[in-house]
């Protein structure tokens, strides 16, 4: 290729283990008896259920509607009856249940009416709305709602569109198989993305350990009516990370704290492009994906899996073996250990990796850090992991933030190379969650303080108003008494007394306010100015503290 490629700093090269699962063709996993579909399968607000227990649903029917801009819908993966809506176990590191819709399938697998969209004739905003309602989210792992990413925003166009076929994590081959067998579909999706983003340059980056996928994508790309450059990039973990792919292909880095669109680049996973094409050209919402089932199983391979299918169903299909020591969702570098095999496949599930003691020997005990800085050499975010570790361990979260803790992408390279075998990423996750918790607490206490201060102010104001009212009344009374001195007589005596007392009180209060000068009165202009500045700074800090700390942009 004539294109000049760039290198990103750091990275590692763990054993690939791709050959185990990429030799067998894709099989469609048979329908399980029950589908458990989580309402939160994407980044953003969870979907809101729009069906009720007992409802009969069709395959592809909307069961959870998108809630807000950063959200996306969920659909029934097959036809059947809704038997439960409520918390169930989901594939999350916490092991905590989340809201799900359970469907008992009827076995007919009956589709809703599917209508293709003429995307070129549609208003872009409408098209994006439709995509959101069809549940399209990034299938590379982050599951960010695609409709949001397909909005070019104020710039009105995003010159460079990168399609990410890196798939750098060991063991995972679902993108590889997808590109080999469904390259045309992927490129149809790319055409839609290009249309929405107004891109002039389309680059497809694929790691060079997938020659079949590269060949298939090149053949498909040649058929398109716009130029698509399919580029083999060196296999180097985490080269499939969006930021790393951008740097390798363009030499540009996404500025810290900004989005890739700020430098005119948008990145989508190949699976997302394919899902988009199915949605637009076939009217199919996102209800299934390719999942690699590999590791300690008899027949490692890729399956086309309906969302909501339990993991044990797939492991059984791939051939369960004795001596399993655990199951990961994702690869060995960033995957999540699964608390339980009843949890369902979701949009983010690219791989089910079954562990054995032989394939994944227990990690040795950690020794103290010797500051060898191998982690710093391996860090693709160019951080100083040894310092972050020190700060996280000692609870010095402020310093950790100063040292760019939130630029960490948790790729695991540092832990992988650490000669002391320290689970570094774990420390960073801990520090991040502690910081988030403290920010939340601080925001809550700020709010409480503001409310308390307002309450005090309100009480003071009410007291003052009352006193003024009374004083006015007393004044009126006195005026009245002066005009008709003895007419009323004893009857109003007590009233007058009350009024007098009230008037005296008011006078005393006024006097008190007078004799106790506030230290904010009679200030020189300089001091006044200084105070104003301090107040402005305080307000700014409070404003900053109120803003969310960091958003996940991966």
């Amino acid at each position, binding site marked *: 290729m004539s294109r000049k490629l760039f290198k990103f700093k750091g990275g590692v090269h763990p054993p690939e283990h791709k050959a185990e699962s990429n030799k067998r063709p894709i099989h469609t996993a048979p329908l399980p008896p029950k589908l458990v579909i989580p309402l939160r399968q994407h980044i953003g607000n969870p979907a809101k259920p729009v069906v009720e227990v007992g409802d009969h649903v069709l395959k592809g029917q909307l069961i959870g509607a998108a809630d807000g801009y950063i959200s996306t819908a969920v659909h029934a993966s097959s036809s059947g009856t809704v038997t439960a809506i409520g918390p169930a176990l989901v594939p999350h590191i916490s092991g905590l249940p989340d809201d799900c819709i359970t469907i008992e399938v009827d076995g007919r697998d009956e589709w809703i009416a599917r209508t293709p969209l003429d995307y070129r004739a549609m208003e872009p905003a409408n098209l994006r709305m439709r995509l959101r309602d069809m549940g399209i989210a990034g299938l590379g792992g982050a599951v960010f709602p695609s409709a949001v990413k397909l909005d070019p925003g104020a710039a009105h166009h995003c010159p460079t569109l990168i399609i990410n076929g890196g798939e750098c994590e060991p063991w995972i081959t679902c993108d590889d198989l997808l590109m080999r067998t469904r390259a045309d579909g992927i490129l149809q999706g790319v055409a839609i993305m290009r249309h929405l983003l107004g891109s002039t340059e389309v680059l497809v980056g694929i790691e060079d350990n997938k020659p079949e996928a590269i060949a298939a994508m090149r053949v498909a790309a040649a058929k398109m009516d716009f130029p698509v450059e399919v580029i083999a990039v060196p296999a180097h973990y985490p080269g499939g990370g969006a930021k790393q792919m951008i740097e390798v292909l363009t030499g540009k880095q*996404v500025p*810290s704290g900004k989005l890739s669109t700020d430098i005119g680049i948008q990145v989508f996973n190949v699976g997302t492009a394919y899902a988009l094409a199915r949605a637009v050209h076939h009217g199919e919402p996102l209800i299934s994906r390719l999942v690699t089932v590999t590791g300690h199983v008899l027949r490692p391979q890729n399956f086309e899996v309906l969302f909501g299918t339990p993991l044990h169903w797939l492991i059984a299909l791939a051939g369960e073996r004795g001596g399993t020591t655990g199951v990961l969702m994702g690869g060995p570098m960033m995957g999540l*250990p699964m608390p339980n095999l009843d949890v369902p496949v979701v949009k983010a599930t690219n791989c089910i990796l079954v562990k054995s003691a032989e394939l994944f020997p227990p990690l040795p005990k950690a*020794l103290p850090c*010797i500051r060898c800085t191998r982690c710093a050499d391996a860090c693709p975010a*160019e951080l*100083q992991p040894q310092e972050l570790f020190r700060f996280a361990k000692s609870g010095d979260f402020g310093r950790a933030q100063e040292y760019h803790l939130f630029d960490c992408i948790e790729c*695991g390279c540092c832990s992988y190379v650490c000669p*002391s075998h320290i689970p570094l990423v774990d420390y960073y996750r801990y520090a991040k969650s502690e910081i988030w918790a403290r920010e939340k607490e601080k925001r809550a206490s700020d709010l409480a303080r503001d409310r308390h201060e307002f309450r005090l102010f309100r009480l003071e104001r009410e007291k003052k108003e009352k006193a003024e009212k009374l004083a006015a009344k007393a004044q009126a009374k006195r005026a009245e008494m002066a005009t008709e001195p003895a007419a009323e007589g004893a009857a109003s005596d007590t009233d007058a007394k009350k009024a007098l007392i009230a008037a005296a009180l008011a006078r005393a209060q006024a006097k008190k306010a007078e004799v106790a000068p506030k230290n904010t009165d009679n200030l020189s202009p300089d001091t006044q100015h200084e105070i104003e500045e301090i107040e402005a700074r305080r307000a700014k800090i409070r404003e900053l503290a109120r803003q969310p700390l960091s958003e996940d942009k991966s």
Partner: protein
Amino acid sequence: MPAPFILDRTSVTQVMAWVLAALLPGIAAYVWLFGPGILVTLSLATVTALAAEAAMLKARGYPAKPFLTDLSAIVTAWLLALSLPSLAPWWLIVTGTLFAIVVAKHLYGGLGQNIFNPAMVGYAVLIVSFPVQMTQWAGPLELTSTPLTLAQSASVIFGGDVPKATLDAVTMATPLDALRTGLLQQHTVDEILVQPIFGHYGGTGFEWLAAAFLLGGFVLWALRIISWQVPLAFLAGIWLTAGFLHFFDAGRFGAPWFHLFAPSVMLGAFFIATDPVTGATTPRGKLIFGLGAGFLTIVIRTWGGFPDGVAFAILLMNLCVPLIDQYTQPLVYGEAKAAKAPPA
């Protein structure tokens, strides 16, 4: 356990084992050039270090096995042994090693926690406390008439009955000592360098020992156990400082090559200043650390009270590490290029 679930094959033990292996060319050259006495010193230091390490681990309630097998105590022992005069008495070796392991390493928190390089702390304590015994260097075999056997060396080290004449015949001032003494006696460098102890670049024999340490250092660099910044900056610091002085007054200051080809410099540059625990961690910090140590080495050699300054120079720079690291933090991803090309 959270991700990642796989590890590279490296371990602390492996890193330390490579450091020991890279010292072997130097040790072989040492035996070849100065006789087998160093083997006694190395063995004694190793046994003392392991015993001290085990005792301290027990006292601090740490498991002995993972920490004894990390080999870090042996690295400390060897570096100290190679810095000591090869015929130093046994109690000197034991005292230095004990101080290095017990005080400099464990009382500061053990592996990874010490601020100062333990071997250099041991050396510094000895040279400050026992300056006379610290001059008992065996001369290069090339210049001594009757070299000591292994048994004789052991006998000297363990305080056996060795005739003073025999001892005087084998011990000799080091080239750095000779230069220092000569300069103190108002001789010029050229007058001093005619003594047989001076060789091509450094001292007779000593320069080859230095070359052997350099070779080991290259191995460590090739294996990426050490980075290039510290050794290069250290050697550059020596060369530039010595070169600057030599340029202005060649009569009073040794040549830069002479300073560079001292074994202590090569050992310091590749094995001691590169100690990750006590050195700077950032790329720019490593350069500053190395340059500073090189500069201070020449300053101490020239104006200080001791013939060699490597140990003190490194200890002084150890002291500066937190400051250096803090002010040399590299830019993270997205900072560097963003500054260069502001987004449109």
